[in-house]
């Protein structure tokens, strides 16, 4: 177990670096959870758009609209923003407001006479998500108000009734009678872990492995009586131990962030899935350490590989947004299976137990394949 022991002696030298990476990634995870749980439980819908208003009409219609928008979105303090280009630009640039709404004089009259199309100015950065939210709220409210106006109601009545009508929502349910919320924060945690873990393992573990890959050192070990297979086996064992320690840290972070949610059958499955994925990440770290001996390249590889998987495998961009062909490609990436397993645990833990375990199995197969490739690369390089 000489190699195994020395692995930890080397790792000890990289202690500071590892702790630093762990801290950074744990704080990133915390930020992810905090920002995503702030917008829970209804996903993007509750994302508030901050808006400022210049009301040059000052009528019942305009004020009712403002009060409706203020309920569904967040009204920014308009006091500092002036209806001047520079001031508005500054407000948008500094994110004091996502959109600035200008209601012109005579707005109510136009609404009554049915000529209100396009009268309100929305000043924003075109195409941003937050501004689209407020625009659709605005259209919904005015459309409903106009409907009531046409039916012969007064403005005062119409705006009240419009608001009541807009409060109607369709009921959505799951087959087993549960409520459809968006992803639970435990899913968010483990989903982002798919990126964090990979990046951490490559930057952290691969740099230790590179030490053993150094030519002089390797030659020495190779010409010793140490069996090549044993050498790699012990290295792998050392990596697995390291992986378990890192997983341990993540479990602690998870317990702190998610409170008790981890102590459930669901949590257990998530943890099992995480362990499978940790094995995959370690195998990738192993492969990367065989490909390059330069430390400065590691970080770039880590980012390309981990961000690439995060984008293509449904971690950063939900799977249903991805095109068919991307999903097909993603089947050949281990992070896809990790994320699929996590998705299924989140929504259909009981019906899809089989496919959850299958996805974990696929990850292990990936890990084995990657390790084999790593060994082949290693042999080729020495040959």
């Amino acid at each position: 177990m000489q190699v195994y022991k020395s692995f930890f002696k080397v790792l000890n030298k990289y202690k500071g670096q590892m702790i630093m990476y762990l801290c950074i990634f744990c704080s990133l995870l915390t930020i992810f959870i905090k920002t995503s749980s702030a917008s829970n439980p209804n996903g993007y819908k509750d994302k508030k758009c901050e808006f400022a208003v210049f009301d040059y009409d000052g009528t019942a219609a305009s004020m009712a609209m403002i009060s409706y928008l203020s309920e569904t979105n967040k009204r920014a303090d308009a006091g500092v923003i002036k209806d001047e280009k520079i001031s508005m630009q500054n407000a948008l640039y500094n994110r004091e407001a996502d959109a600035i709404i200008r209601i012109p004089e005579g707005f109510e009259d136009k609404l009554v006479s049915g000529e209100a199309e396009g009268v309100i100015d929305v000043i924003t950065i075109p195409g941003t998500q937050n501004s689209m939210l407020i625009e659709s709220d605005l259209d919904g409210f005015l459309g409903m108000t106009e409907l009531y106006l046409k039916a012969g109601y007064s403005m005062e009545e119409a705006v009240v009734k419009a608001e009541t009508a807009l409060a109607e929502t369709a009921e959505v349910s799951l087959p087993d009678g549960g409520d459809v919320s968006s992803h639970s924060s435990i899913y968010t945690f483990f989903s982002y872990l798919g990126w964090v873990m990979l990046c951490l393992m490559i930057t952290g573990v691969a740099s230790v492995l590179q030490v053993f890959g150094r030519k002089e050192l390797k030659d020495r070990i190779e010409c010793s009586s140490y069996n090549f297979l044993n050498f790699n086996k012990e290295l792998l064992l050392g990596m697995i131990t390291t992986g378990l320690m890192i997983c341990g840290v993540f479990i602690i972070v998870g317990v702190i962030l998610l409170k008790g949610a981890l102590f459930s059958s669901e949590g257990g499955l998530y943890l099992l899935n995480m362990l499978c994925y940790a094995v995959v990440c370690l195998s990738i770290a192993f492969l990367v350490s065989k490909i390059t001996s330069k430390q400065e390249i590691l970080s770039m590889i880590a980012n390309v590989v981990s961000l690439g998987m995060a984008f293509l495998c449904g971690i950063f961009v939900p799977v249903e947004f991805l095109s068919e062909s991307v999903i097909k490609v993603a089947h050949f990436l281990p992070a896809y299976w990790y994320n699929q397993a996590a998705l299924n645990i989140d929504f259909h833990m009981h019906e899809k137990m089989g496919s959850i375990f299958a996805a974990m199995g696929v990850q292990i197969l990936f890990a084995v394949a990657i390790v084999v490739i790593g060994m082949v690369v290693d042999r080729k390089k020495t040959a």
Partner: protein
Amino acid sequence: MFWHNFKNCMKVTLKAKVSIFWTLLFPIALATFMYVSFGNIMDNEEMFKNIDVAVVSSGEEENGLMVVIDALSEGDDKLLNVKEMSEAEAKQALKDEKVTGIIFADDVRLMVNESSANASILESILSSYKQNEYAIKDIMGNLETAPNEADIMAIMSDVMADTSYYTEKSTSDSNQNMYNNYFYAIFAMSCLFAAYSSVGAISNLQANESGKGMRKCISPNSKIVFIVSDFLSLLVLHFLVELIALLYMSTVLGIEFGDKYPAMILTLFVGSMIGLAIGVIVGAIAKLGFGGKIGILTAIGLVLSGMADLFVNGVKRAIELHVPIINKINPAALITDCFYSLNTYDDYTIFIQNIMIMAVESVVLIVIAFMMIRRNKYASI
């Protein structure tokens, strides 16, 4: 000497093919990944069509929802792909993932497997139907006279009219889409990564880090000449890398960056500058080994990028509210702000201000680095 070292630095960097490969691959690969994964969303017309949905209806009641659903499932670009089923069939289909959701037409209810974008679309169709239904019933119920055909038709056509009441106005003349921010983030990160190459160059300048550094130290040349010529040489290379990445994104991927290319290119130039300068200052810290320096650079890169919203949105805003000065210093934030200011402003005041800050920061960092290693006699080699 200056040009001699400049050329040599360029030659050595170019010949280290693996490093150049990854430096170039980084922005290109990431942009490609993002492009293919966002491709669907960016191309709105391709998106959101043919959502498979099962409709369960008793068929007895007069139901306006069926009219709406039928309207949405007609034509080439139909939004919905409807199959009428019995409840049991529908639930089986949902379980087998043949359909995204089940619409129960009688009580306007939706059942889905999981929360997803398509489920949200179905939900919003139903919600908006319910709102209109409520309004129409409300209006009909309160009519003094019995509703006649013409009134109903008028109201229905109003509902269907889908008027837009606003005009969107931009404060600048650029035409951007929201996903550009992600590509700007790639540029910011790849600029910060330039630090890896300059940290190597500075290590090659210090006698306690490399034999080459020893040779340079005993040569009759000031270190500032080495620093500046290495720096400029790497700047040229990294600027080229960024330009190639920009060219790739705009031509091969076809991303619309608007027409402010000169300003973008200037941003990339100054961005490479600040990235390299960070590498120079970290490289100049005498006590650290090369591995430690790389570790610190990675940490700096991740932290700065994180604070500039490159991973998750909202951090930068929080900083703006509490300690706005950080956003004015953080190079990653400055690079993205440069791009952002091009979208917000129609003049270049703020843009130039950001560029100036970065330029000044770069110079300050290099000067400090020079002071640190200028006459460095080493305690041990």
